[in-house]
């Protein structure tokens, strides 16, 4: 993937750069247009820092009318546009293109309405995920999806990526918590999908927009549902001699009808890295460590803690601690939450993967990863959203050693192939972006991909919005629209009729 092929820059656009910058300054007056290379440097990459590219120009609009005019201008002139929220994508979704306007939505940073009787918040897309919770927590409410970047990531970006988080097994992903959006199409048209009510009429365009990685439209307003905070939360910290036992414990918890607020697993390398870093008191003699958090009324949490403890012991846990205070609960989480920087301490660089597998396949996938680790000569540590099968293998490498990045990427690709092979998928929550783009054929046939691209054609027929992301090979919409059917030549076997 290091030899990532992006769409070839359009010469006509490159030649007209000065004119385009001047026109952008007319549409977005003031400080909203950045064209100096040193100032654009801040936008050259997102959370996938292995890739960097300066855009043609950075535009930071402030109004929906400006977004609409920028997009229409670019659409009319065949200029590419890359939308960006806070730039925390881990898959390169906001990686700029040399010939594209980078449309940065960070100045859309206001909460527009808070409505407690209807339990909704209307926010501009640049408001951070945590910013929504901050706006309503004085009344005891919160916004449930909690990606680990929630202090920085924007709600518009959450819509683009269908972001999840530790609590999404019980409370759902972004798609399950957003009621409506306002968005601008590449042709400048403004449309509203959904609103303050449930289930929009007509086709579920909100459903397809959520997780579309900035390829279909630019979100300019988001309506989310907020929830009342659970009365209390307690956690168990459970160690197992084998990952099989840990996996079976998770299956038995769910089999008992319990859906925990959070359920996280770590393997031995991740446990050791985390313990060395934050001294959370994790047991070091176990192969799998499970954190199970139960939230709700105190009586419910107490009831379920007892049930989960019995299930853990039944599965041969060697340690099982139950948090007796809020401080202790947070200490259980401290190691898990610091897992990424902890791994960063034991390796110069690490590469975070994001496959999802059927949970029962965990032992097989972990064994496969150990073999791959030996094959590539690179270490790997695993953290795992155990409840929903979302794996985050962290591949350890050193970017200063020539060839190691390539090796790490090949290792990562093999892990994702393994995930697909056991019935899983390429990405659970980080998105395809540029990172997993060329792996899409591992999961989808050309017919599958063509039909996805036809969805793109309905929104953006000239492939101007965020091209080079998600799809390994862009096909022109006119070509995709052709039908190869010939009357009378289609096989028509004996189909029962009456």
């Amino acid at each position, binding site marked *: 993937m290091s030899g990532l092929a992006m769409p070839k820059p359009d010469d006509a656009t490159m030649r007209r750069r000065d004119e385009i910058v001047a026109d952008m300054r007319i549409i977005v007056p003031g400080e909203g247009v950045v064209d100096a290379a040193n100032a654009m440097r801040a936008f050259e990459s997102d959370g996938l820092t292995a890739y960097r590219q300066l855009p043609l120009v950075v535009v930071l609009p402030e109004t929906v009318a400006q977004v609409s005019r920028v997009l229409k201008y670019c659409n009319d002139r065949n200029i590419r546009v890359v939308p960006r929220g806070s730039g925390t994508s881990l898959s390169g979704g906001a990686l700029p293109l040399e010939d594209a306007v980078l449309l940065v939505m960070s100045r859309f940073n206001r909460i527009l309405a808070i*409505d407690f*009787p*209807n339990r909704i918040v209307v926010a501009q897309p640049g408001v951070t995920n945590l910013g929504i919770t901050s706006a309503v927590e004085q009344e005891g409410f919160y916004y449930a999806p909690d990606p680990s970047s929630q202090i920085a990531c924007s709600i518009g970006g959450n819509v683009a990526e*269908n972001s*999840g988080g530790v609590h*999404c097994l019980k409370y*759902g992903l972004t798609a*399950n918590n957003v009621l409506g959006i306002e968005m601008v*199409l590449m042709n400048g*048209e*403004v*449309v509203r*999908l959904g*609103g303050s*009510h*449930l*289930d*929009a*009429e*007509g*086709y*579920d*365009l909100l*459903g*397809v927009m959520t997780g579309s990685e900035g390829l279909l439209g630019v979100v300019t307003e988001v309506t989310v549902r907020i929830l009342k905070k*659970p*009365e209390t939360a307690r956690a168990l910290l459970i160690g197992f001699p084998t990952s099989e036992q840990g996996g079976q414990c998770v299956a038995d918890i769910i*089999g*008992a*009808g319990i859906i925990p607020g959070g359920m996280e697993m770590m393997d031995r390398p991740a446990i050791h890295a985390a313990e060395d870093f934050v001294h959370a008191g994790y047991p070091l003699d176990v192969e799998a460590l499970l954190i199970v958090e139960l939230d*709700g009324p*105190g*009586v*419910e949490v107490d009831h379920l803690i007892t049930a989960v403890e019995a299930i853990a012991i039944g599965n041969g846990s060697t340690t099982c601690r139950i948090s007796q205070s809020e401080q202790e609960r947070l200490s259980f989480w401290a190691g898990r939450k610091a897992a990424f920087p902890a791994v960063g301490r034991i390796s110069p660089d690490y590469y975070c993967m994001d496959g*999802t597998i*059927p949970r*029962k396949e965990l032992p097989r996938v972990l064994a496969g990863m150990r073999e791959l680790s030996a094959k590539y000569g690179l270490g790997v540590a695993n953290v795992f959203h155990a409840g929903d*099968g979302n794996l985050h293998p962290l591949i350890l490498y050193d970017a200063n050693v020539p060839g190691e990045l390539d090796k790490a990427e090949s290792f990562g690709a093999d892990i994702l192939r393994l995930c697909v092979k056991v019935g*899983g998928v390429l*990405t*659970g929550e980080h998105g*395809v972006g540029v990172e997993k783009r060329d792996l899409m054929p591992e999961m989808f046939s050309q*017919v599958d991909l063509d*039909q*996805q691209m036809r*969805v793109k*054609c*309905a929104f953006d027929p000239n492939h101007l919005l965020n091209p080079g992301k*998600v799809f390994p090979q862009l096909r022109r919409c006119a070509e995709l*629209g052709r*039908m190869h*059917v*010939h*009357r009378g030549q*289609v*096989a*028509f076997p004996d*189909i*029962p*009729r009456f």
Partner: protein
Amino acid sequence: MTTFTPTTSEEVLSTVAWAVAEGSPLEILGHGSKRGIGRPLQTEHTLDLSKLTGVTLYEPAELVLSAKAGTPLAEIEKLLAENGQQLAFEPMDYGPLLGGEPGKGTIGGVLGANLSGPRRLKAGAARDHILGINVVSGRGEPFKSGGRVVKNVTGYDMSKLMANSWGTLAVFTDVTFKVLPAAETEVTLALRGLLDDAAASAMALALGSSAEVSSAAHLPERVATRVAGGALGSEAATLLRVEGFGPSVAYRIAALKTLLGKAGPLEEIAGEASQLMWRDVRDIKPFADGSEKPVWRVSMAPFHAHQMVLTLRMQAAVSAFYDWQGGLVWLRMEEGDPEAALLRGLLRKHGGGHATLVRAAPAHRAAVPVFEPQPPPLAALSARLKAEFDPKAIFNPGRMAPGAGSATLGVATEGSAP
């Protein structure tokens, strides 16, 4: 007039390929339990999926179930119940309202109509639980989307796009849903004698508490008697359902009683009596009267609903009841006229949403847009999307809006766009 009854995905594919080649429209049908919803169709041929059946994968510990699209919902619900699980979104049954048998409907129809029930409030609709699909497009090509795992952002979520498409984008052959444990205990708290506005305030208070109310309905006076075999009597009933483990349910019910004690007299209804009541609310039992009086399904911001209904009552004779804390309003038009313009105008004045004419005589369904008309840019986008899936308009043409070639929603007339 031919009815094709495929028993395999390959037969579905060859039927569609034939229809595409002939340019011959098909009515896509499961059990036909929702056949009366939408504009009446005039297709020569029918693609009947009711023999494309069978659960192909069910792993309770993985919370996942796959089935052929024509598998009866009743069969799936029975299998899940045997394992202490359920479709948490509680898909409703339109059969009784539309004069059909109860208990019909296929799993494909559940997705195509994006069904849900009173638990929609907390647990979402079919769209929130669909994990993956295999379908045949109107280009005569089979494609898949999604998978069998809960967390998946690989490619566009085409599975959600199929929800509420009413058979106009693609023919489903296989669907995979997330399933969840069924609640161990269920108790409903009924507040009696509240007027609509007081009920709206009580429901908002309850839903704004940490009691985790999973369903909230208000049955006004005279409507209440038409659920659960009249067990509630005729006095208005505001129903709050609490589900979960026994000790937790008891605690949360007690908390709600403290919170709402001043709102009016309270009753507790537990177990099967509670389940029966919610099933009747879910299936619109109060309006399942064997008539063709128009019935509307209105989705709107919950706290605005009672005001909208109050204004409507001044201009038309209607019966109404509320689910989803008020976010779902069921309306029966007592004088036989759907009053579409009046209702949709009021809806726009009360925060917007959508009104669907789920029951009406065929003449009304042909004349009145059954589905909420969309503003021009959105209608055009929907039409483009339809053309990308079904360029020859062979799937259920006209069901969602007039026009032989267009199966997308009507366009809102000037001045009516929100």
